[in-house]
C-alpha cells in the first residue's frame, strides 16, 4: 500500500510539473493522508475493532 501511494504522489508531482499547477500539491498530499485514514477506517481488517471501542 505504501508503494502504491508513493507512486501516485510521485506521478502527481510529475503531472503538476507538466500542468504547472504546483500549488495543488499540498492539497493532493493531504487528500492521500485522508485516504489512508478513510481506507483504514472502512477496511474490514481494522475498522470494526476500532468502532467497538467508541
Amino acid at each position, binding site marked *: 500500500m505504501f508503494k502504491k501511494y508513493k507512486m501516485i504522489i510521485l506521478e502527481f508531482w510529475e*503531472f503538476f510539473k507538466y*500542468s504547472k499547477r504546483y500549488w*495543488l500539491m499540498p492539497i493532493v498530499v493531504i487528500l492521500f493522508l485522508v485516504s489512508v485514514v478513510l481506507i483504514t477506517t*472502512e477496511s*474490514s481488517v481494522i*475498522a470494526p475493532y476500532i468502532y467497538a471501542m467508541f
Partner: protein
Amino acid sequence: MYILGISCYFHDSAACLIKDGNVIAAVQEERFSRVKNDSTFPVNAVEYSLKEAGITINDVDYVVYYDKPLQTFERILLSYMTVAPIGLSSWVKVLPLWLKYKLFIQDEINKEINYEGEVLFTEHHESHAASAFYPSPFDEAAIITIDGVGEWATASYGYGKGSELTFLKELHYPDSVGLLYSAFTYFTGFKVNSGEYKMMGLAPYGKPRFKEIILKEIIDLKEDGSIRLNQAYFDFLGGGHMTNNKFAELFEGPKRQLDSKITQREMDIAASIQAVVEEIVLKMAKHVAQETKLKNLCIAGGVALNCVANGKILSSGIFENIWIQPAAGDAGGALGAALSVWYRFLGNTRTNPNGNDTQKGSYLGPSFSNDEVKEFLNSNSSKYHELPKADRSRIIAEQIANNKMVGYFSGRSEFGPRALGARSIIGDPRKLETQQTINNKIKLRESFRPLAPTVLEEKASEYFDIEKPSPYMLLVADTAKGKRLTQKDEDGISIQGRLNQNRSDVPAVTHVDYSARVQTINSNTNPGYYGIVKEFEKLTGCAVIVNTSFNIRGMPIVNTIEDAYDCFVRSELDVLVLEDCILYKEEQLSVTPKIDDIIGSKAKPKTIAKDNLKDVRKFGIGAFIIFGLLFSLGVYTGKAFPIYFFGFLTSLGVGFVLLPQKMFVVYKVWMKFAKFIGKNINFLILSFVYYFVVTPLALAKLVFGGRPLPTKPDKEIASYWKLRAESAQSKERFFKRF
C-alpha cells in the same frame, strides 16, 4: 497481438478487444448487468470479449484505459475550488470514489480481471477521436469530438491521416456543449446521461422561442463554434444540480419534475436548445473545415449521437462525407483507446480503407447459435417453428405486413445505443398505430417518442432526403416530398392530437416535423435483415420497415436469448424471432413461470458461503488478539471497565473463531454498525478537509490569481478554443495516468 480497451467509472462502461488492429469484440457492460448505462467495471464485457477470441487474460498484450485519471482529478479539484465553500454534499460523495478506486485504475484492473501486465492510458478525447477515425472509411479526415467532459477537454478538433492523429485545439471545462444540452435535459424533466434522446425527440413539437435568450444570457457563442457557459445560471461546478433558480427565471418557472406532464413550455425549451446546439455544431464544422481544408469528417463523443445536428452538417455541404462512430459515447472510448495503442503507441501502419469502414456494421457483441436457441426453447417448453432458410425473410416480412409487432433477435448484438437489426423490434411503417402500439404497449415509454425507419439503401432517397448511406442510424433526414401527405395547421393541437396525424406514406416513422432517423441497409452488412426489408417491399411495395431497439423502458437492449424471451412474454409483442426459430404469442400457453424459474435459478443461495465463514473466523482471530491485549492491559492496571468490556469482546472473538456459523448474524450486525460509524467519520474528516484545506486555498487563489475556472463570458476575445501543448500525447505518456 491482443489489446483490450476499457472504459468505465463515468457512464456506459464497455470493453473492446482487438487483434492486430481488427476488432474482435466490443460490448457495453449494461447488456450483461441489465443496468442501463452501467458505469461499473466491465467485468462481464471483458469476460465475453476474451471468450469470443478464445483466449484468456494472460494472452492479452496490453490493457488500455480510455481516460487520464490524474488530469480528471485535477479538474475536479479545481471545480470544487471554484465554488467552495459550496459543494460539500457532492464532495463527500465524490472524493472517496476517487481516492479508493478511480485514481488506482491499474489495481482495479488487476483485481477485477487478474491482469498483471502493463496498463496504458489514452486521453479521453483521443479515445473518442481514434474511435471516429480509425474505423472510418477515410484515409484522411478532419475529426471533431464533442461530449460532456473528458479530463479537461469538452470538445476537440484535429485531423487523422493514415495511422496518425493530430489534435489542433480544444474547448475546456466548464465550457461544454454536452453539459449545456444535459442541463436542459435536466430542466425539461429527463434524466441526465440518458434522457438526452428524449429531449431531442421532443424538440420538433416546440417552437424555438427561447433561442435568443439562450444565446444572449446562457452562453457566449463565437463565430468559430467555441462557447463559454455563463456559470451564473448553472450549478454543476459544485456537483449539485445542473441548473439554478436564476436559470428557472429565464424559462418561465421551475424545472419539470420527472414523469410529470409535459407542457408546451418544455417542448419550446427543447426546440430552442436543439436549435442552439445545431448552430454551435454547424459553426464548429465550418471552422474545422476552414482550418483543415479536408473534405471528410469523422465525429464522436456523446454529442455526436445528436443525429439531428449530424443531419444538418451533412445537408449543409460543409464536408462532402461524414462518418460517425456508432458507439459515439463513452462506450466507444474503449474501442478508440485500443486502436490508439495499436496505431499510435505501437506504430502500426493503417492500410487505406478505400471507402469501406471497418466497424463491421457495429455487430460486435455476443451471438447465439440455433442449437442454443432450441435448447433454451425446449427446456422452456415453448412452442416454436423452425424457419426454413429459403422462406425465412418472407415469413417474417408477412408477419410485419399483417401488422404484427416482431421482436427480432439475430446474429451478434450491436455496439452502441442503436438497434440495427440484430436486437430490434420491427413493424409496419405504413400503419400510424404502429408507433402508439410500440411506445404504449410494448416499450411502455412516452408516447411522443419517434420510431426510426430501416430502408433499403438503394431506395433511401426515394423515401427520404438523403443522398448518402446511413448504416448506423445516426443521421436525421426529412421525409421526401413525394411521400408526404398534405397537412393541416397544427397550432394549439395537443401532442396526442399531433401524433394521430397521418403525415406520409410511412406515418409510423415520420416525426411531427417530417424528419426521420434513417437507417439504410444493404445486403453485404446484414443479409438476413436486408432480406426481410426486401421481402416486405415485394409484399407491400414499401421498402421501409420500423426499427426500434428491442427493450422496454428503462432497460438496456436485450442481450441474450433469455432477455429476448423475457421481453416477448412480458410485453405485447406478437412474434419473436430467435435466429431461425419463430414464436407466435397466441401459441404460447403459460410462459411466465418458466422465466421466473430462470430468474430464480440465478438467485443467490441462502446458505452461508464457505468464504464468508472464513471471514468470520479471521475477524474472530483479530478480535481475540486486539481485545485480548486490551483486556490484559485492564487486568494489569486493575481497572474494572476494560476488564469486563474487553473481556466480553475477547470472548466474542473466541465465539467467532469456534462457532462461525452460529455467530454469523452477530458478525453481520457488527459489520453493519461499523459501516454506519465509518460513513459518519468519513463525512466529518472530508468536511474538515473541505472547509479547512480546500476553501482557504480557494480563497487564496481567488485573491492572488482569480477563480481557478472561468465563469463568465469574455466579449473581448475572439475564440474560446485553446491550443494544445502537444499535437497528440507522446508515446511515453501512454504509460502515465496524466
